[in-house]
């Protein structure tokens, strides 16, 4: 899309359903620590009936870092204990909104 140079929020899709946030963040932080200001993790689910992948949304400080991150993680293979492979994808998040930094405390 035409305004992609300004985009900073990406989504990592097709992560293993059982990956933990800590495990994923270790890998990300080994190269990208301090280069993003917001990250959120959505655990997946494995049941007999239905499997959903884990996801993570990351908002980088600089648009250029998105490119480097994609080179690093797009197509990255995660292998779980049973040997199942998950090929992760990196894409610009369709919605570029991130939570406002100031979050008002709810007086309720």
């Amino acid at each position, binding site marked *: 899309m035409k*305004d992609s140079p300004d985009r900073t929020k990406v*989504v990592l899709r097709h992560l293993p359903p059982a990956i933990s946030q800590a495990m994923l963040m270790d890998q990300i932080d080994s190269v990208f620590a301090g280069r993003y200001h917001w990250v959120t993790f959505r655990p997946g689910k494995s049941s007999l009936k239905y499997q959903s992948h884990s996801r993570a949304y990351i908002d980088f400080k600089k648009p250029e870092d998105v490119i480097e991150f994609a080179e690093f993680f797009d197509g990255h293979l995660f292998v779980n204990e049973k040997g199942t492979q998950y090929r992760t994808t990196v894409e610009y*998040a*369709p*919605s570029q909104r991130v*939570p406002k930094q100031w979050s008002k405390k709810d007086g309720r």
Partner: protein
Amino acid sequence: PERSPRVTKVRPPLHQYIRKLLFADLDKTTIEHVLRQLRKLPWSDCEPYLLKCFMKIHRGKYGQIHLIASLTAGLSRYHDEFAVAVVDEVLEEIRVGLELNDYGMQQRRIAHMRFLGELYNYEHVDSSVIFETLYLILVFGHGTPEQDSLDPPEDCFRIRMVITLLETCGHYFDRGSSKRKLDRFLVHFQRYILSKGALPLDIEFDLQDLFAELRSNMTRYSSIEEVNAAITELEEYEHTVSTEKAINEKLSDTENRSRRTISCAISAK
């Protein structure tokens, strides 16, 4: 034969309460009460479950989806993180729906399209997100070996998805850059429709209603050749005015946003 007794799911009381608020109590007269109760929840414990319930809008009444969008707007003031997650999650659901194209998911997929449209109406997504989603629906999986399972020639479900989204928020794209974007999209949409060949009558009637409502003067092309010619013309035109457009776009977008302020009617008290 012996049958094991049916196991009923036992939910923690707080989860039961959230479900009662969203799926039983919520209507237009109680929405302020529901919002207040949701705000009183122990937020850090309940947020993931609340998000899950917001994604189950197909369990509630179709006509009440806008109330969930309104709650999202109401909660965003104190829990912006939640409102952002709702949008990300709906878009993910739509994407996964396209990836699986599972017949059993059709009802929820339609509900998610409606929800996305209502989130636009409550100013929680930008028009660019709407248009990206619309184009994604037209092209996803095309040109790949899976095309025949993701969007078989006789499958008109994607047309339904587009109709649902545009029925919900298309009437806001009536001026400025978003008007032009919708005009452009509708030509591409027509090409997609024509690629399907003869349509079932119910879809054809819904399309006629949609065009009548959004663009009553727009030409409905009758052949692929005609619509391709129209797209070529459109692209040439876009090429010549692209620089000029970039400047005007910024101006009219700001003007457009301020017109959608029906939303915060139930904003927090």
